[in-house]
């Protein structure tokens, strides 16, 4: 059985229900967008799916193995997780921090393979020029890309990323979404928490819409992002307009 | 605290003459504010005449007469406590309880300050003087006479070829000239390490220096109760190995902390240790 599936997972923290029984998943080759208003439970569901937080009930199954009993090293190699920014990075070099993504392979280090993976990740995040800079001197957006590169360096078949484009300028946001698309095209399963509905609609194969600790809807973007659903969940009226300025694709890129 | 450098104070005793110590008026409410006068009192007067001694008097690591002192009232060394005890004589040292002694004197109480004994010869004189102050001159005379006789029996004639001994105490403290224990050493026919080695004014000697230039005899001066780093250094295995058998003797500090008849026990031990050394060399 392939894919990453969370079945009826629920979670309470400090006596408060933060996740009602919910199910969600991602198949190989699929890019899934996890959206919803602040406090809807997107990050919680993602952390449960990544095995960072054991659910009170339900279970998460990765490639047929329940995460609760799967080996840590196997999980670390199979599923790469990019959490929200937790701590300011130390003054280590960018390349050294990105190389932390190779730690799941620390038991049998392969210098050439690890080096190649790090270089690829740096290139994907547009950080090759900054590889020897102390991470403490990066700007907010550079820092976000450095953390993404760290997650990419694992080269795991599954990637779960929590708001990876929130701090990025439009060009880099588009570039990063392109990276996710390419990963999916290469057979990876990717789940991304997003706030930008436009990016979600444009890049994702499937959308999971969260509201008040549970999944309100999931499916193809056109089916989920309806006017009624957005009004109910976000409390906003939406308008589809033609003359708005929307960063669409990187200059020179082709669809 | 112990063996402070000397004041030259034969005179201090004279203070008491003002209050008629020489007329041998018997005192019945005596307060002592110093460990040494505590023990002197116990030698001379009946227990019921003592209304206060220091808390140290019953501490066997500091006081040879600790058993006798047990049960005696302990007096705090404050002016208030001393005056409230309504003593008819206050005995004290030269350095301790200065405020209490000053207060006692200002309220008109008879005060006698006894300086620390620095030589064995000081001891019989102090016994006589305190005995006179408390009103038992005959008892003092008897004790002092006995002391002098025993001293004569024990003393050795000093010679420049005497073995060298170092009195080594807690924290690496080496006892210098001008102290009672140094005088005991001389009377036992031993030369003090500090004079031979020319240590100058240093009173502290690391173990390593002591072993590098070892004296013939290591006199371990052990005092105090409980455990302390200061004393655990005296048990250092290096000292044990460098000063085996007859080269080492332990003298409990209480024997010569105060100048008392029992100080001659220290002299006796040292003289025997010296004899043992000589036998070993022969």
């Amino acid at each position, binding site marked *: 059985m392939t894919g990453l599936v969370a079945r009826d997972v629920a979670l309470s923290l400090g006596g408060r229900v933060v996740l009602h029984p919910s199910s969600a998943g991602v198949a190989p080759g699929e890019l899934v967008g996890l959206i919803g208003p602040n406090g809807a439970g997107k990050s919680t569901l993602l952390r449960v799916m990544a095995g960072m937080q054991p659910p009170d009930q339900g279970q998460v199954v990765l490639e047929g193995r329940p995460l609760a009993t799967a080996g840590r090293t196997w*999980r670390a190699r199979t599923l790469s997780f990019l959490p929200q920014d*937790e701590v300011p990075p130390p003054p280590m070099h960018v390349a050294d921090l990105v190389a*932390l993504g190779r730690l799941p392979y620390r038991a049998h280090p392969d210098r050439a393979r690890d080096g190649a993976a790090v270089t690829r990740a740096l290139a994907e995040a547009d950080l090759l020029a900054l590889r020897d800079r102390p991470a403490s001197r990066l700007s907010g957006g550079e820092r976000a890309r450095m953390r993404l590169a760290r997650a990419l360096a694992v080269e795991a078949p599954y990637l779960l990323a929590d708001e990876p484009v929130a701090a990025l300028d439009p060009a880099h946001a588009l570039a990063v979404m392109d990276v996710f698309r390419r990963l999916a095209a290469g057979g990876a399963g990717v789940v991304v928490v997003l706030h930008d509905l436009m990016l979600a609609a444009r890049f994702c194969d499937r959308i999971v819409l969260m509201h008040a600790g549970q999944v309100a809807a999931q499916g193809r973007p056109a089916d989920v992002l309806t006017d009624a659903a957005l009004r109910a969940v976000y409390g906003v009226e939406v308008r589809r307009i033609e003359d708005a300025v929307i960063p669409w694709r990187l200059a020179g890129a082709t669809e | 605290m112990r063996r402070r450098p000397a004041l030259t104070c034969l005179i201090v005793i004279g203070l008491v003459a003002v209050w008629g110590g020489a007329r041998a008026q018997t005192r019945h409410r005596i307060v002592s504010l110093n460990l040494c006068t505590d023990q002197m009192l116990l030698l001379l007067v009946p227990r019921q005449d003592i209304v206060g001694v220091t808390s140290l008097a019953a501490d066997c690591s500091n006081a040879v007469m600790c058993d006798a002192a047990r049960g005696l009232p302990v007096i705090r060394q404050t002016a208030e406590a001393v005056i409230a005890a309504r003593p008819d004589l206050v005995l004290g040292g030269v350095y301790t309880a200065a405020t209490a002694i000053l207060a006692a004197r200002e309220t008109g109480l008879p005060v006698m300050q006894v300086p620390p004994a620095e030589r064995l010869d000081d001891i019989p004189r102090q016994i006589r003087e305190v005995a006179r102050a408390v009103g038992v001159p005959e008892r003092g005379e008897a004790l002092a006479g006995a002391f002098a006789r025993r001293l004569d029996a024990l003393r050795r004639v000093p010679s420049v070829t005497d073995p060298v001994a170092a009195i080594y105490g807690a924290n690496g403290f080496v006892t210098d000239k001008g102290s009672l224990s140094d005088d005991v050493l001389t009377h036992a026919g031993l030369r003090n390490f500090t004079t031979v080695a020319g240590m100058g004014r240093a009173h502290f000697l*690391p173990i*390593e220096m002591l072993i590098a230039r070892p004296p013939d005899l290591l006199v371990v001066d052990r005092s105090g109760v409980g*455990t302390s*780093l200061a004393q655990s250094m005296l048990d250092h*295995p290096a000292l044990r*190995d460098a000063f085996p058998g007859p080269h080492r003797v332990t003298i409990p500090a209480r024997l010569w902390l105060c100048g008392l008849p029992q100080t001659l026990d220290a002299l006796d031990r040292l003289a025997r240790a010296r004899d043992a050394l000589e036998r070993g060399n022969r």
Partner: protein
Amino acid sequence: MNDRRDRTLVAILGGAVLALFALSLVWGESAIAFGPACADLLAGRHSAGAVILGELRLPRAILAVTVGGALGLSGAALQGYLRNPLADPGVLGVSGGAALGAVLVFYTGLMGLSVAMLPLGGLAGALLAVLLLMGLVGQGGALVLLLAGAALSSFAAALTALALNLMPSPYASFEIMHWVMGSLTDRTFTHVWISLPGTLLGCLLMLTTARALDALALGDEVAESLGFRLRGPAGIQARVVLGTALAVGSCVAVAGAIGFVGLVIPHLLRPLTGHQPSRLLLPSFLGGALLLLVADAAVRVLSTGTEIQIGVLTALAGAPVFFFRVLKMRRGMS
């Protein structure tokens, strides 16, 4: 490339430690003929030279290496784990807690039961201090950590002073300096034997966390997602806490709370190793050993009348680093 540089650094530091170790045996307060002393020592003769070499200088030099190494390594491990370059067993009150534990055992006669009680007392005190610290700080930042550490270390020092004042020994109250500043004078092989197991075990435990500390550089969740266990009996936290407590507790029990080694050594080495915690651990052990060997040699040169505590010298070296760090922190904040 990094590997080769690290290996060169470790080789240089290791060579320096060996050289100074030898020097501290050859040279001391008194002049002894080293060759004959060695021969006497090996032959089991109690000559003055052999006693000085084997029972005074050797245990002292061994302790300088193990205590300095353990303190340097603890500093590096704590700094990596707490992601804070100001972390140090002394600054955080771990050494203070250990000193309190050791004082309670040493002066109350508990040591009469067994000499092994001394390091156990130190371990208990250190463990209590680390747990209290972690509990107090929780998820708080650098400032909370330093405040908690300052509070903890002054509290432990006050309790140590109180305990010493209440002890029956007339000397006890004067020995506060040994316990809060530390000293290697007049240590015996007994001290070496009782402190060695805890020190070695603690150091090994800290060394096993090397890669995990690297992973922690980007936060707990990143480390967790890379396959490291944070909590639980075999987790990083338990290994750092127990390792520090074992090493610091055992060392402080025999040498007092020598301060600032764990702060100053990683700080001096970082320009050479980079900021990756794993690359700092072994050099910090060697650097700490080196610092204490140098400081102990200085103590012997400078002590004429009374003895200078070795901790005074490490504090003199360490305090400026602390000032520098604080200034840097202020600049970072404004």
